[in-house]
């Protein structure tokens, strides 16, 4: 359109012998001519590549613009964020890093890129199909834990812990008379000489062996309740408004807590498994090692609520003697019921409350009444768990007045103390 105006002014200036009017039109005509003769002939190629690494969530945008492209106008949008717009120079291939900060973890669809490459003077502008959104895996943050309770019964023949059984190990249990089956290298010759050597006859009587406590490992089963995901603002629970991307939801806290526990357990050489209370699929069986840690983290990252899960007829099967750590908001009975069942079967159970610290400022009177009822029920549920010998840990401190002033670290230390059954 500017070219048309330029041509009109140029013609008018020539017709009326006005060099100033013609000169006003001349740059517009020349600009249009320049844009037309240098217009791009190829297509713009773009790619959006998710990037790994800690810190903000990143993706790399690669744009290859053909020769003659002057600028690329770009709009990057992600649900929950203000869109970002930019005008880029496109005289060469461009690589742009996109990043955002979020409190969310799991699978995040981000960075839909709408872009319009344009030739000089807007002679040509192509509306290209949008790129993305990219499917990004945001790994949960891992909080280092100082201590974690052990199961009531340790298992296995090797491991970092000392069990109560007599067997192969380092910690002395007692000195005992030699019995068939004892290893010869276990004979304690000093004790044998002191107790059974007869100097008159020069013969030995009974042999004595040093018996040690067997070493063992612990099995920890993480059970994440992915049936619901609630944010800190109670007003969003009904689904009318989305939770802000800068606020962690209950499932984000569950992922963080489970990943932290898994890392701690694997670092001390024990085995850890993972099950999802919201899905009836095969659990990750207990195992040890760094590869298994990555497997657990990957599964945790992909855990998400899926529709309305069917109620379980049976509680998930667990390895015998395992420490069960269940991560839930305890907003309904199911998680508490299975926790109580596992406790009655002899497992040691830790209930990790992952409800975020709540805000109720935006609730109308009806919603506030409903929330008060939910809160009371949740309080009764948690008290019931404690009565049954289940340690309740509040990951976010005191989310709704039913928690404690203790942080998660202190609560775990307290639960690990020997008087509470820990070794």
């Amino acid at each position, binding site marked *: 359109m500017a070219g048309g105006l330029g041509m009109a002014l140029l013609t008018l200036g020539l017709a009326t012998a006005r060099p100033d009017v013609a000169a006003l039109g001349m740059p517009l005509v020349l600009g249009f001519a320049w844009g037309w003769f240098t217009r791009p002939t190829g297509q713009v190629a773009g790619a959006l590549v998710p990037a790994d690494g800690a810190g903000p969530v990143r993706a790399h945008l690669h744009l290859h613009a053909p020769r003659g492209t002057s600028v690329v106008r770009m709009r990057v949008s992600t649900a929950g964020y203000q869109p970002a717009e930019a005008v880029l*120079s496109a005289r060469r291939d461009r690589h742009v890093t996109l*990043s955002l900060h979020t409190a969310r973890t799991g699978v995040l669809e981000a960075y839909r890129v709408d872009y319009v490459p344009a030739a000089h003077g807007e002679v040509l502008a192509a509306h290209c199909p949008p790129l993305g959104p990219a499917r990004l895996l945001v790994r949960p943050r891992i909080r280092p834990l100082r201590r974690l309770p052990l199961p009531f019964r340790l298992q296995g023949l090797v491991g970092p812990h000392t069990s109560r059984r007599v067997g192969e190990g380092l910690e002395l249990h007692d000195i005992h008379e030699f019995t068939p089956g004892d290893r010869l290298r276990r004979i304690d010759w000093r004790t044998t000489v002191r107790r059974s050597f007869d100097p008159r006859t020069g013969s030995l009587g009974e042999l004595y062996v040093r018996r040690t406590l067997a070493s063992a490992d612990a099995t920890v089963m993480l059970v994440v309740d992915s049936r619901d995901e609630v944010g800190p603002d109670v007003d969003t629970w009904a689904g009318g408004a989305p939770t802000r991307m800068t606020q962690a939801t209950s499932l984000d806290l569950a992922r963080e807590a489970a990943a932290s526990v898994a890392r701690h357990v694997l670092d001390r050489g024990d085995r850890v498994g993972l099950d999802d209370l919201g899905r009836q699929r095969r659990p990750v069986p207990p195992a040890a090692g760094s590869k298994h840690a990555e497997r657990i983290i990957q599964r945790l990252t992909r855990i998400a609520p899926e529709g309305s899960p069917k109620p379980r007829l049976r509680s998930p099967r667990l390895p015998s003697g395992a420490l069960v750590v269940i991560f839930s908001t305890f907003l309904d009975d199911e998680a508490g019921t299975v926790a109580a069942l596992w406790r009655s079967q002899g497992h040691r159970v830790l209930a990790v409350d992952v409800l975020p610290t709540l805000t109720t400022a935006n609730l109308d009177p009806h919603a506030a009444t409903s929330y008060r009822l939910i809160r009371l029920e949740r309080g009764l549920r948690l008290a019931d768990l404690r009565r049954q010998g289940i340690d309740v840990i509040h990951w976010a401190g005191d989310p709704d007045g039913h928690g404690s002033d203790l942080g998660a670290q202190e609560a775990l230390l307290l639960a690990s103390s020997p008087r509470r059954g820990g070794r």
Partner: protein
Amino acid sequence: MRLHLGTTVPAWALRVPAFALAAIAAVVVTSAPLTTAVLVLAAVPVLVAPGTALPVVTAGLIGWGLLAGDAHPVTATVVVLCVPTFLAVCRLVGGVGWAARVEVSAVSGAGRPLLGFVAIALAVMHLAMAAPAAGPGWLWAGIGALAALAVLTGLLTRRLRAMN
């Protein structure tokens, strides 16, 4: 959300000078207060809606104002400098919002050819104004045509080289 770009300026920092250029052109092109007010008012779309056809209409009105007034070299120079520049800025930031980031390299890339074209136009205009005014006007028109021909030949040569 953040885009990691080169050196950038916000789009509003380009829109405001573009409006200022349009207002300057509107002020210098006529001495009648009412016409000046109308032209400045017509320049407001340069600020608020640079992506529409309204800035081109503004440029047309300024051109009309130039045609209605007397040909003065200083006035014409200011107008020829301002109008293509604000139109180029409008094209650059037209499709994006106030807060968009505009790379400085994109501004300079769009500005370099424009400077050349404006320089050619000013040179042709001053040559034509210096030529005898009694003539039929063919002299400056011929100079302009020759300059345009030179530019187009250069462009064609460049294009043909690129095709090889």
